[in-house]
């Protein structure tokens, strides 16, 4: 293949074919996230902020459109984005990076916040990873990260470990979450107590007749046993918060791999009884009102009933910091409690703070 000159950087290149006019570092502008005519090298040195504005999916789609050679470019671009985001933004010479690690069930939420925050504030970038609430808190106590995400509140052992390390973890509630009890639309049952739910899920009650429904067998639906929702439900509903209680889910409980599996079954099976995060409940399922004791009050899950504490199967989502936050971390937490971030909370199916 004859060598040619790249039309943008005047470098000799052996790249031919579709990109005959330019070298492989300089493909036609439409294939990368630069305005037409702009050089890819300039793009690579642009701020992380400009690059993160275009979503990964859009980038991937465009890279796919531009054909195979651009996959290479896409990779280079991605690496550029990663390298420019990761090392504390020092090379870019602006702002700081917040390290945020923790709960897997909050990863999507944390990512959405970080992306939105990167758009709104160019000075701070936030790097997110999962690993579980325990992992996040352990890293926080060891001082390797700035914020730990947790879907449970900190344990006494963890507080003790932190104090032994000379730090005080501070709790910030950043979102709330309710677990809704769902049944088929035609099911006459519209209220259950926590006690009844416990009996239902441990297999003591096996017919809808016993809780005021039709004479039908009960099909119990649950998420897989490794999901946080499953564990929360086991501890707070099946065992009713009693730590010594060793009751388990009934053997006949169907463990479905996804929320979609639960909603599909609830939609079509009049025998079904399921539970799921409030955000995953679709209008074609019937939500059951829940009460702590038979005298009531029976409450339906909603943003209001979760926030005023009247809905019994709800939990908070936390972020922990070492001591009272200052500077960029404080600003980030302040922003999270604000309107824009809480709108994202609602979008992702959690309950926003009031």
């Amino acid at each position, binding site marked *: 293949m004859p060598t040619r000159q790249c039309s943008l950087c005047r470098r000799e290149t052996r790249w031919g074919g579709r990109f005959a006019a330019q070298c492989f570092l300089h493909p036609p502008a439409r294939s990368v996230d630069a305005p037409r005519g702009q050089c890819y090298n300039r793009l690579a040195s642009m701020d992380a902020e400009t690059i993160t504005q275009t979503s990964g999916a859009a980038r991937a789609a465009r890279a796919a459109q531009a054909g195979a050679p651009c996959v290479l470019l896409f990779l280079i671009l991605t690496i550029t984005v990663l390298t420019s985001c990761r090392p504390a933004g020092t090379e870019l010479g602006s702002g700081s990076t917040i390290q945020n690690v923790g709960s*897997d069930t909050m990863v999507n939420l944390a990512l959405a916040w970080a992306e939105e925050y990167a758009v709104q504030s160019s000075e701070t970038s936030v790097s997110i990873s999962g690993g579980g609430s325990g992992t996040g808190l352990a890293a926080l106590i060891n001082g390797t990260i700035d914020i730990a995400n947790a879907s449970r509140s900190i344990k006494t052992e963890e507080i003790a470990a932190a104090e032994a390390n000379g730090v005080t973890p501070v709790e910030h509630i950043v979102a709330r979450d309710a677990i809704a009890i769902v049944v088929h639309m035609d099911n006459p049952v519209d209220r259950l107590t926590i006690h009844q739910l416990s009996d239902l899920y441990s297999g003591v009650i096996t017919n809808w007749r016993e809780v005021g429904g039709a004479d039908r067998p009960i099909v119990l639906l649950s998420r897989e*046993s490794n999901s946080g929702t499953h564990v929360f439900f086991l501890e707070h509903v099946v065992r009713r918060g009693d730590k010594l209680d*060793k009751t*388990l889910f009934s053997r*006949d409980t*169907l463990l479905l791999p996804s929320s979609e599996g639960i909603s599909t079954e609830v939609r*079509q*099976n009049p025998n079904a009884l399921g539970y799921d995060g409030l955000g995953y409940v679709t209008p074609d399922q019937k939500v059951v009102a829940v009460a702590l004791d038979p005298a009531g009050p029976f409450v339906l899950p909603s943003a209001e009933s979760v926030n005023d504490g009247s809905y019994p199967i709800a939990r908070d989502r936390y972020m922990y910091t070492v001591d009272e936050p200052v500077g960029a971390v404080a600003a980030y937490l302040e922003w999270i409690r604000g309107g824009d971030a809480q709108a994202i909370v609602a979008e992702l199916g959690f309950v926003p703070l009031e």
Partner: protein
Amino acid sequence: MPRLLWPNWALYRWNKPDTGTVEKEPIKRTWQESLMERTIRVTGVSAIVIVGLIVLFLIREAVPAFVQVTPAELLADRWYPVEGYYGLVPLLLGTLLVTVGAAAIALPAGLATAIFIAEIVPRWARDLLKPFVEVLAGIPSVVLGLIGMLVLAPLVRRFAGAPTGLTALTGSLLLALMALPTIVSVAEDAIDAVPASYRNAALALGATRWQTIWRVVVPAARTGVLTGMMLGVGRAIGETMAVMMVTGNAARIVTGPADLFLPVRTMTATIAAEMGEVAQGSTHYHLLFVIGFALFLISFVVNLAAAAVVFRQTKRSERVMS
């Protein structure tokens, strides 16, 4: 049987061909040729090496489980690893029930379809039907699982009178659907390869068409038919995604065929559902590898049985022929 376990090294002549015969003009071996030969040899050997490494890895990851959990715990009737219940019996029985159910549906149906396509319909219809059956094999199992969840499960609930549609039967039906193309395709090829002289001879002796098919053609194609069946059953045992979506995954103890109408949890679904979240190096993690190793053993035994059957029958038919 011993010949199966130990390769007949005489078949593999790694050295140069012996020069005892009359020396002809030596075949010119270009460097491309020897390069290709080496490449093929390396890929062939690497397949064996990779399988060996997989087995070693499975064993290495599974062994700690036997130290951490007593055999009595492993044979208990409850699988709930989050709380330390490690009984594997419900999972084994679940896999057994779903696979046997699938085989009971797919084997007769597959053989019947193969006979129909190869022997009964005219040639042009065969050319049309066979690709259709083979396209069925190309449907991703997630798509079939979705169809099973949305279409098959409600039908099973309505017509079988089960409390839920997510049952072992739904899984068996779906697996049968997935095993069918393999069985039909391989068995049909084998039946089609039976020489026309066999059919002509049978018909000349006064056999009816059905007698010819059932007594002459199918037995003559037995090796291929059995291979197809074993491949189909092998696919059924190993299938994960579709099964996880439609069997309900309740780790119940299976007591009999009536449990076809109730949910079960299979070994493959357990690995797929739990491996993603398990803490590396925990007892639970090692137990998932125990399940994986058990699955490996099961499919190994199925393949060995198939090989033994095929091997024996070729020998007998060869004897009859000669």
